[in-house]
C-alpha cells in the first residue's frame, strides 16, 4: 500500500528567489524505512512539513493513503507521529505529562495512556527525567523526549526530522535500535531526515538524496551503489618509514602520514591484499562504498 504519493510537488516561500521544493515526485510505501539525505537548505524539512500538512504546497499534490492530504484534516494527525527539529515545543509540560496527553489525544484510553507513558519512559531509559520540562533538560535529553513523545500512542507512521541531532554516540545507536525494533514488531513506516549517512545506513531501506530543492535520486542504497560505485575502498595503515610496495599502475591517495586509500575493482583488491607483505602493514580495512560515498557522489559537483 502506498502511504504517500507525491506528484510534482513545488514549494516557494514568500519573498524567496529560489524554490524550496522543485517538482518532487516520490512514493513511500507502507512498512518502509525511507531516509532523506541532503545538505542544509536542500528542502528536506520543507518536504516533511508538507507531508504532515503544516506547510501548504505552491503546486503539485500529495495523496495520503489514497486521498488528497487536505480532504480530512484529522487523518494525518491520527496516523502520523511527527518529530520536528525544535526541542522546546512542549512548552511547560514535563516529559511524563507530554507522553500521557499525547498518547491520550492519539486515541488511547486514560488507563492505556498511563501504561504507554511508563512503557516509553522505560524503553528510552528516561525515567529519571519524567518530571522535567524541556528547559530543564540538555539538548540530547530533549531529543529523547521528542522521540518518545512522537512514538506515544504507537502511530503507524513516523516522520522524524534529524532525530540523532545532539545525541551522544551510544544514544544514537540506541535510537536506531529502537526504530529498527519498532519497524520489525509493529511494521511502522519510518521516514526520516538525517545528515548522518553512515549511521543511517544501518537502518535505511530506501533513500532519497536532495539538493537545491530537487530530488536527485531515489532508490535502495545497494542498487544505487551498484549503479555508480563499482570499486571497493582499501585503506592501508603502515609505518611511514616503511611503506608497502604497490603495483606500478595503482596510485594511492594519501590520507595521512602512514595511511593510504586505494579505490580498486573487487577482484584486484583481494589480489593486492594477498600480494602485500603483511609485515609492512599495521592495519588494513576493505569495504564497499558507503551511503556517505553515495551521497557525496551525487551532491559533489564534478571537479
Amino acid at each position: 500500500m502506498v502511504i504517500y504519493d507525491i506528484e510534482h510537488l513545488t514549494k516557494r516561500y514568500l519573498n524567496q528567489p529560489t524554490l524550496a521544493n522543485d517538482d518532487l515526485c516520490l512514493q513511500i510505501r507502507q512498512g518502509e524505512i525511507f531516509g532523506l539525505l541532503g545538505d542544509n537548505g536542500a528542502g528536506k524539512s520543507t518536504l516533511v512539513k508538507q507531508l504532515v500538512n503544516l506547510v501548504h504546497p505552491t503546486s503539485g499534490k500529495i495523496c495520503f493513503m489514497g486521498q488528497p492530504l487536505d480532504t480530512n484534516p484529522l487523518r494525518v494527525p491520527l496516523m502520523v507521529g511527527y518529530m520536528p527539529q525544535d526541542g522546546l515545543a512542549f512548552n511547560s509540560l514535563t516529559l511524563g505529562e507530554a507522553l500521557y496527553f499525547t498518547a491520550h489525544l492519539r486515541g488511547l484510553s486514560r488507563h492505556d495512556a498511563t501504561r504507554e507513558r511508563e512503557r516509553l519512559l522505560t524503553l528510552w531509559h528516561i525515567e529519571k527525567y519524567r518530571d522535567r520540562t524541556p528547559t530543564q533538560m540538555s539538548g540530547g535529553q530533549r531529543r529523547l523526549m521528542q522521540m518518545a513523545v512522537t512514538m506515544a500512542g504507537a502511530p503507524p507512521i513516523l516522520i522524524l526530522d534529524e532525530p540523532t541531532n545532539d545525541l551522544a554516540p551510544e544514544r544514537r545507536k540506541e535510537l536506531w535500535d529502537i526504530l529498527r525494533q519498532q519497524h520489525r514488531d509493529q511494521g511502522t513506516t519510518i521516514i526520516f531526515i538525517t545528515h548522518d549517512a553512515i549511521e543511517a545506513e544501518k537502518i535505511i531501506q530506501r533513500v532519497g538524496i536532495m539538493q537545491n530543492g530537487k530530488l536527485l535520486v531515489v532508490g535502495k542504497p545497494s542498487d544505487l551503489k551498484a549503479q555508480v560505485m563499482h570499486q571497493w575502498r582499501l585503506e592501508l595503515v603502515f609505518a611511514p618509514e616503511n611503506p608497502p610496495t604497490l603495483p606500478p599502475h595503482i596510485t594511492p591517495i594519501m590520507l595521512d602520514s602512514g595511511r593510504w586509500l586505494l579505490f580498486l575493482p573487487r577482484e584486484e583488491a583481494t589480489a593486492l591484499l594477498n600480494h602485500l607483505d603483511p609485515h609492512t602493514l599495521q592495519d588494513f580495512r576493505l569495504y564497499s562504498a558507503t551511503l556517505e560515498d553515495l551521497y557525496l557522489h551525487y551532491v559533489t559537483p564534478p571537479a
Partner: protein
Amino acid sequence: MLLPPRNPPSFLAQLIDLTLMQLSNFRWSWRRMAITGMLVPTANIVMLGLFNRDSGIDTLSYILVGNIVISLMFESMGKVSSNFAFMRWVGTFNYFATLPIQRYMLVIATLLAFALLALPALIFIIFFGAWFLAVPLHANPLVFLIIPLTMIPLSSLGAWLGTLAMTPDESNAMTLVVTFFLLCLGPVLLPPDRIPDILHWVGRLSPATYAASALRQTLIGPITPQLGWDIAMLTFFAISMTWLVSKRMEWRNN
C-alpha cells in the same frame, strides 16, 4: 495490510486534556501573577486610595474596579499574549497541529486555563481593594457570569497580539502599550466626569470599558439597564476576538 482506522478524541476529552496541558503554564506564570497580577494593582490601590481618601465612595469604587481590570489585563491578556507568542516562537503550535485536535478547542482551552490561573490574583485584589478602600461589596450572582465574560475578550485580545508578534519580547511590549491605552480610553480607572469627552467616546470601542462597567454594577451595585449593553458588547468582543485568533494562528493547511 490495511492500517486499522483510528478515532479522534471526543470534544470533551480534547477540552479537558488541552486545558490541563495549558494549565502547566503555572510553572512560569505564578511569578508573574505575584508581581503584575497582585503587586502592581495592590500598589495602585494603596497609592490612589491614600491620595483620594476624601473623594467619596464613587471615586474609590472606580479605583477598586479599575485595578481589578488592571489585574485581569495583566493576568489574562498579558499572559495569554506571552503564551501565544512563545508557542509560535518555539513551535508549540506545530506540535498541537500534528495531534488529532481542533484548532478552536486549543483556543478555548487556552482561554479557560489562563482564566483559572488569573483567579487567585483577581480574588485577592477584590477583597484587599474593598477592605483597604472601605468600599462595601454588594455582589450580585451575575458576577459569576461577568467575570468570565470580561476575561474572554481580554484573553482573546492577548492571544491575537501574541500571534501578531514576531518574538515573545515584542509581544510583551505590544501588550503593555495596549494595556496602557485600554486603561486610558474610557472610564475604567477614573470616573466619567474626570476624563475628556473624546476619551469617553473612544472608550466605547474598548472591551475594558464594558468590563469595568459590568464589574462595578455586579460587585458594588446598583445594577442598571447599562449592564445588558455591557454583556452584549462583551459577548460581541469575546466571539469576534476568539474567531480572529482562530483564523490568525498557525495551524494545519485545511
